[in-house]
C-alpha cells in the first residue's frame, strides 16, 4: 500500500525569477532552457518577460517553472520586488568576462535575502563559459561566495547549452515539492467546502 502511494505521479509548479546585470545573458539562459536554442542577437528585455518550462525531476515528479525574466538595467531595479515577491527560487546570473557583473549579482543576492521569502532557493550562475579565453571572474572566487551563503553554484553557457539543464535540475531538487503538493491539496479542500451547492458554476476560485 505504501509503495502504491509513493508511486503516484507528483506535479508541482514554482515561480522562478531571473536577476542580473544587463547583457549577462539572462534571456539567453532562459531561452536555452525553454526552447533549447540560442540567438546571437537577443534583444534587450524591457520590463520583464514571462516563460514556462516543465521538467521531469525524477520518475514520478514533474516540476513546472514559471519564469520571470527581468530587465537588467539598474533603472528597472525598483520593479524587481514585484517579480521576486512570492518567488520560490531565483537564478542570479553574472558574466564570467565582466567583473562588475559579479558585484551586481552579489547585491541582488543580498536584496533577495532581505526582501524575498525566507525559504527562497537561490542559484548563482556564471554565464558565457564559452568565452573562457576572456574570463575575468575566477571560478574559485564565485564558488567560495556561493558556498559561504549556501547557494547553488554553476558556470554555464547559454550559447553551447553547457550546464543549463543541470542548474535547473539542481534548483528543482532543492524545492519543497511535498510541501507545495500538501498546500495545494489543502487549498483545494478549503475551496470545495466553500463552494456553493447551486448556481455560480461559472465562477472560478481555484
Amino acid at each position, binding site marked *: 500500500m505504501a509503495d502504491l502511494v509513493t508511486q503516484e505521479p507528483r506535479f508541482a509548479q514554482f515561480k522562478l525569477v531571473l536577476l542580473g546585470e*544587463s547583457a549577462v545573458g539572462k534571456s539567453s539562459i532562459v531561452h536555452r532552457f525553454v526552447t533549447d536554442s540560442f540567438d546571437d542577437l537577443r534583444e534587450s528585455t524591457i520590463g520583464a518577460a514571462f516563460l514556462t518550462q516543465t521538467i521531469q525531476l525524477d520518475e514520478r515528479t514533474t516540476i513546472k517553472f514559471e519564469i520571470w525574466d527581468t530587465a537588467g538595467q539598474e533603472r528597472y531595479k525598483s520593479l524587481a520586488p514585484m517579480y521576486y515577491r512570492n518567488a520560490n527560487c531565483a537564478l542570479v546570473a553574472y558574466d564570467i568576462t565582466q567583473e562588475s557583473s559579479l558585484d551586481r549579482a552579489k547585491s541582488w543576492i543580498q536584496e533577495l535575502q532581505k526582501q524575498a521569502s525566507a525559504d527562497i532557493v537561490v542559484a548563482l550562475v556564471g554565464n558565457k563559459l564559452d568565452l573562457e579565453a576572456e574570463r575575468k571572474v575566477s571560478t574559485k572566487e564565485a564558488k567560495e561566495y556561493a558556498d559561504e551563503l549556501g547557494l547553488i553554484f554553476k558556470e554555464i553557457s547559454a550559447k553551447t547549452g553547457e550546464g543549463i539543464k543541470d542548474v535547473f535540475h539542481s534548483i528543482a531538487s532543492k524545492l519543497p515539492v511535498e510541501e507545495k503538493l500538501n498546500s495545494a491539496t489543502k487549498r483545494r479542500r478549503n475551496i470545495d467546502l466553500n463552494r456553493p451547492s447551486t448556481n*455560480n458554476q461559472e465562477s472560478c*476560485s481555484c
Partner: protein
Amino acid sequence: MQLLSTSHTRWEELTKSELEDAQFHVQENPHIKEKKSIERCLLTDNVDGLRQNAINNPSGLLVSSLRATAWPLLLNVQHELSQDASSLKPHLEEGQVRLDVDRSYLPSDKHHLLQNVIVKLLRNHPYLHYYQGFHDVVSVLLVTLDYDETLTYDIAETLCLHHLRDFMLADMTGTTDLLPLVVDLVKVADKRFGDLLELIPPFYSLASIITMFSHDLDVQDVVVLWDFAFAMGNVTQALIYLYAVLILINKQQIIDQVVEMSGCQIDTSVTSAPTLSRQFVLENTDAFHFTLSNLTKCFGTNGSSNQDLLTRWKNETQYLISVVKLSDLPTSKDIFSGSAIKQPSSSNIDYTVRLHTKYLVARKRNLSVVKNCKKLLHRNSNNLKLLLKVSVTVGILSLVLGRCLEHNQYVGLPFHHRTWRDMCNTIWRF
C-alpha cells in the same frame, strides 16, 4: 471640413490628363487618393489636414517618404542648434546604450547611427536619463526616415523633450505614476472589469508604453499608430488611451487566456468579468500580468486583418480621448504637474526635473506625515481604540442580526441549513 473643401478645389484644378492618371492609379493602388490628399496638405502646410489624414486613414500617412515630411510638422519639430557629441562631456549611461545598440535588430552597419543619435541626445541634454526601450523608439525613427541621422535626431529630440520626458527622469516614478491611468480608463468604460484589473500591479503596460508599441508590433503597424499619436498632439496621452482601448477590445481573449493558464475547468464561452471572483484574480496575477503585457501579439491571429484591427483600435481610442478628459481620471491628481501628459508644450527639461524632484520630496513628506500621525494615534489611543473597537463591533453585530431576522428566508430554517457563505452573502448585500 477644412480638408474636404481644400481637396475639392484642388481636384477641380487638375487637368484632364492628371485626372485620368489619378483614376488609373485609384484602380491600381487603393491608397492613391489618400496619398494625393496628404501631398496636398504637405504642399500647403495644412497641418490640420495632415492630422485628419493621419488619424482617419486606415494606413495613416501611408509611406515613409510622406512621414519624413509630415512627422516634423505634426510634432512641430524645430531644428534646434545642438552641439556635436564629441565636444560634450560623456553621459553616465552611454555604456548601457552600447549594450542595447549592440543587440539591436537593425542591420549591423547601421548600429553606429543608433548609437550616435542617442549619445548626442544624452550629451546635449544631460538631465535626461536613458532607458532600455528608448533605443527601440529611435530604431523605428531611423528605419522610417531612411537612416537620415539629422532628421532622426531632430524628431527624437522633440519626442524626448515634449513627450517621453517622464520616462527619462532620474528614477522610474515619472513612468510608473502614469500607468494606473490605464485602469482608470478601463473603469470608465467597463467598471466591473476595471475593478478586477485594479487588483493587479499596473506594470504590464510599461514596455508597450515606453517603447511607443515598437517593442512588440511590426514596424509597419507601429508607424500607423505613431501617425495617430503624433496627430493627436499629446503623444503620452495617446499612448495611455491606446493601451486602455487595447485591453477593452481584447477583454474576452484576456479572460479566456487567464482561465486557460490557471488550469481551471471553466466554460470560457459563458465566463465574463463579472463571474470572475476577486480571489481568482489575486491568485492569478502572474497570468494576468503576462496576458495583459502581450496583447499586441493578438494582432493578425484572430481572423481580422491587421489593418482592420488598427482602424478599430484608433477609432475607439479617438472616441475615448474625446469623451474622457484626463483631468476626470482619479489617478490624474497623483501625477506631477510637469508631466508630459499634462504639459506637452513645455520643453524645458531642467524645469521639469526640478518640478519632479520637488514633487517627490513633497510626496515623501506627506507619507511621513501620515505615518507620524498614525504613530501618534497609536501611542495615545490604546484605551480609546479598545472602546472604539467594542462599540463598532456591537454596532455591526446588531445591524447584521437585525437584517438577518428581517430576511424571511432565514426565519424558521434550522441553523445548519445556512452555510457560512449564505451568511456572508447576506452581509454583503448591505
